[in-house]
Structure formats: C-alpha cells, structure tokens
C-alpha cells in the first residue's frame, strides 16, 4: 500500500457526505435508501482502511457485519417503501407527512 491511509479516509468521508446530502435532498425514498447504502459503504471503506493500517482484521469483520446488516436493513426498508407507496400517486416522502406538530 503506497497510498497513505489518510487519502482513503478522506475519500470515505467524501462518499459519506454525498450520501448525507442524498438523504436530505432527494424526495424519492428509494434513492434515499440508496444514499443510506452509500453511507454504510463509506464507513466500511474507512474501516477497511484502518484495518489495513493497523493490520487488524477486526475491521474486516466489522465491515462484513455491516454488509449483512445493510442487507437486512435494505430488505426491511424496501418492504416498508413498497407497502407505503403501493397505492400512492407519488413516490415522494414529502407526501407522507401526516404526522407533524
């Protein structure tokens, strides 16, 4: 590895915040979920980088668990999105704002 780990971490930070902006700025729940996957992957990249830097494969295990959890989360999230918007005219989270105040 001839690239300093800081570069990888900086890359992961950039990806993370593209994800954050995606969650805030997009109204399509599917794209929001994809942005959340981006968040998780960015964290994974940081984990793997540090695992390499410290030569400690706990980071790999962590990243692996994150992948599994992300899969579970995506499944549940997609199911909720599917039942919520199945009969709606718009697939738009802004339309789902009955709870407020």
């Amino acid at each position, binding site marked *: 590895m001839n690239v300093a*780990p800081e570069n990888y*971490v900086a890359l*992961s930070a950039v990806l*993370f915040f593209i*994800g*954050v902006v995606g*969650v805030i700025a997009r109204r399509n*729940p599917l794209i*929001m*979920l994809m942005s*959340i996957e981006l*968040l*998780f992957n*960015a*964290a*994974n990249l*940081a*984990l793997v*980088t*540090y*695992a390499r*830097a*410290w030569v*400690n494969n*706990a*980071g790999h*295990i*962590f990243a692996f*668990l*994150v992948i599994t*959890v992300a899969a*579970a*989360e995506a499944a*549940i*999230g997609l199911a*909720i*999105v599917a*039942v*919520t918007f199945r009969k709606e005219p718009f697939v738009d*989270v802004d339309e*789902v*704002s*009955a*709870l*407020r*105040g």
Partner: protein
Amino acid sequence: MLPALANIPTGADYAALLPAFVVAVTPLLILFVDLFYRESGPWRRVVAVGLALVWLIVAGALQAGQYPHDYVAFGGAFVQGGFSIVLSEIVIVATIATLLLSIGVGRDDQVAGTTSLLLWSASGAMLMSGASNLMTVFLGLELLSLALYCLCAMSTRRTARESALKYLILSSMASGFLLYGSALLFGATGSVAFAALASATVTPLLALGAGLFMVGLAFKLSLVPFHAWTPDVYEGAPLPVTAFMSIVTKAGTLAVLARFAYAALPSEHRAAVLLPLWVLAALSMLVGNLAALAQTDMKRLLAYSGIAQVGYIVTAFAGTSALGLRYAILYLAGYTFMNLGAFAVVALMARDGDAIVGLPRFAGLAARRPWLAAAMTLFLIGLAGLPPTIGFTAKILILTTTLGAGYAWLAGTLILGTAISAYVYLKIVRAMFARVDAAHVRDERSPNVLPWVAVAVCAVATVVLGLQPLTPSNILPLVK
C-alpha cells in the same frame, strides 16, 4: 495450515449471555408452535403471548441470578454484571408490560410474528446492555432497531407506515454516523474494544470518533437536536410498540452510553470529550418540556416528555461520578414504571388499545373512572417530579450529584425544565378533575383487562421506589 483457533468461546462465555439468549430463542419456539394453527383465533394469540411471558420471566430470573457475578465473555465483546444486569431487567420488565398492553392490538394471525420481533428487539437491547466493543454495540443497536422498524408498521393505521418509514430513514442515517464514528475510533486505537479506547492517547481522531459515535447514541436516546423523529414515530406506531420503544431503546442505549462515558474514555480528556453530551441534555430538558406544552395527543406528549426525561438521566452522568450512574439507573427504573403506567392508562382508554387518545378524552375522567384517574395522576405527578414518587426522589438525587460534580448550570437547567414540565403534566391532571358534562365526552374502554395489572404494578412501584429507593450499590466496580 490453519492458525490455531485459540479463542473458541466456551460454555462460560455463553453463561454470561444466557438470559439474552433465552429471550432471543423464544421467538423460534413461538413461530414453530404458531405453524400448527390453521385458523386464527384468540387462542393463537394467547399461546404466543403466554409463551413469551413465561420465557421472559425465566430470563428475568436467570438475569437476577447473575447479579452478584461479573462476566467477561467472548474476549471482552460482552461484559455482564452490575448496572448492565439492572438495565437488562428493566428491558425485560418493559417487554412484559408491552405484552400485557398488546392484547387486542393487531391481527391474531400476526401476533406470533410481532411477539417474536418484540422479543428480538428486547434481546438486542439486552445485548447492548452488556456490549463492550464497537461491533457488539452496532449489532445490538441494529437488532433492536430493525425489529422496531417492522413493529412500527404493524398497524392498519396509515400513520403507522409513515412512522416506520420516517424511523427507518432517520435511524439508518444516525446508524451511519455511529458507524462512521466507530470506524474513526477503530482508526484511532487499532482496536474495536472499549478497553483499548480507555488506554489510548486522546487524538483529534479519537475525539471526533467519540463525537460521531455519541451522535448515533444521542439519536436513539432522542436528545435534542436529534429528537425530531421521536414525536412522529411515537404517535404513529401502535401503542404497545410506543411504550416498548420509549423504555427499551433508552435502556439499551443508556447502557452503551454509560459504559462508553465511564469506562471507554481516557480520563484525562473525558470532561472535554463529553461536554457536548451535557449540552444536548440541557437542550433536551428545555425543548422537550417546552414542546410538550402545546401537545394534546397523549402519545405525542409522552414522546416530548420522554425527550426531557432522557435529558434528566443524561444529566446524572455529568461529571461521570459513580453516584451519578447509580442515580441515572434509579431514575430510569422509576421512569420505566411511571411511563409504562401512563401508557397502560392510555391503552385502557381506547377500545382496541391502539387508538389515538387526545387530551379532551381525559376531561372529567375522575368522575367516570376514578381509579384510572387516580393512577394517571400518580404517574403524571411522578413524571413531573413531585413527591411522594420516585420521580421526585431520583430527581433530587440527580440534582445533588450534578451540583456536587460542579455542573451547576446543568442542575439549574434541570430545575427550570422541571418547573416547565409541572405545567405540562398538571394540565392533564386538571382536565381529569374538571367537571364536564358526560354527554360531550366519548368514553371508550378497552376490553383487555391485562393493562390493569401493569397499572397496579407501576403505581405501587412508583410510590415504593420513591420512598425506599433501591440503588444497586455495587455497580461501580462493574462498569468495565
């Protein structure tokens, strides 16, 4: 050649995990038994809930039996003993109460599934209570949350799905922050164990990682400004789930927070690293109580109240004194009973146990259902922090430790928040004792009598704990 598998877990490791394991495996039994029912009927529900109750009680007994012992299991991934046992018991109590409230909510043929999810969620919280490395924290949190996302959607109300969606999106985002914080912490120390964090030198990376990690926890605790999800989700979710969420999430997350703040931070910079937490607590006490002023829906009001109450609990941690931890747990135990009691009362006021109960429904309750009104008054007095309840006792204790630790501004905020909150809660009390023409009030009663059990137990506990506070005396050596 494979490297020697030196760290294969043994029976001793599993002994530490046994209660959580019992809670996690019971759903398999419930789902299996449920397979034999072809028709849905009340028995199907009774069997599922009954099994869950029995095994929860077993788990509670096992957990209590562990009390004097300390366990360090799975190479330090899971540590059990002292305060984490108390918090696990709180989780179990809350789950039992939730099951009592949930009779009559939802479809009979879904009860096995929802009960299973509830138990898994509880086991996630129990895992968190003993979690002692970043991985276990993350997994416990996700087990807890994923089951809750599903449970939130388990209602025919349209708002239930909305609450699930909001919860999922925001909570996942917060999990992302927690995860990124964990990654930075891992990067700063080269280890995922809390023990390694405690002995590390404080670098900006470590401080920032701790900060992002705490953001994730603060979201779960719904501290301001990470609280925005709470009222909406509490309102939309089915009532028993709301009751469950209001306690169990907090218990699990507070365990992690306590362990993190007390045992996983280098002592030299602990105060500076934790400072934002106290600011969040102060904000929560103010914003929670102020926002509750304008609420009329009970679940929503209790959500804001919960935000403020968590502020009080986190206040107890200020200065990370051993007494503070004790009193925080005492307050949480008291809050468990007061809050569950209030939810049980609300459940008794709706025919299907899950309607939206607004403040007008409480008008003149004292004349129509005096016992219910009396119990609700007690719980509200407790939440407001007035004697003779645990709310008062624990709050006084928290104030003294906070002042003793030198956080006078935090104690002042607590007093201010309490003063505001008195108005919030006594507003309901006043409504209950107002004289109202019965013809104008719609009165529904739940056919389910089990919440009465919860109401009675919680009422007794609220008073008894207030007069004779049981603080686990030997939690201090067991933090690590």
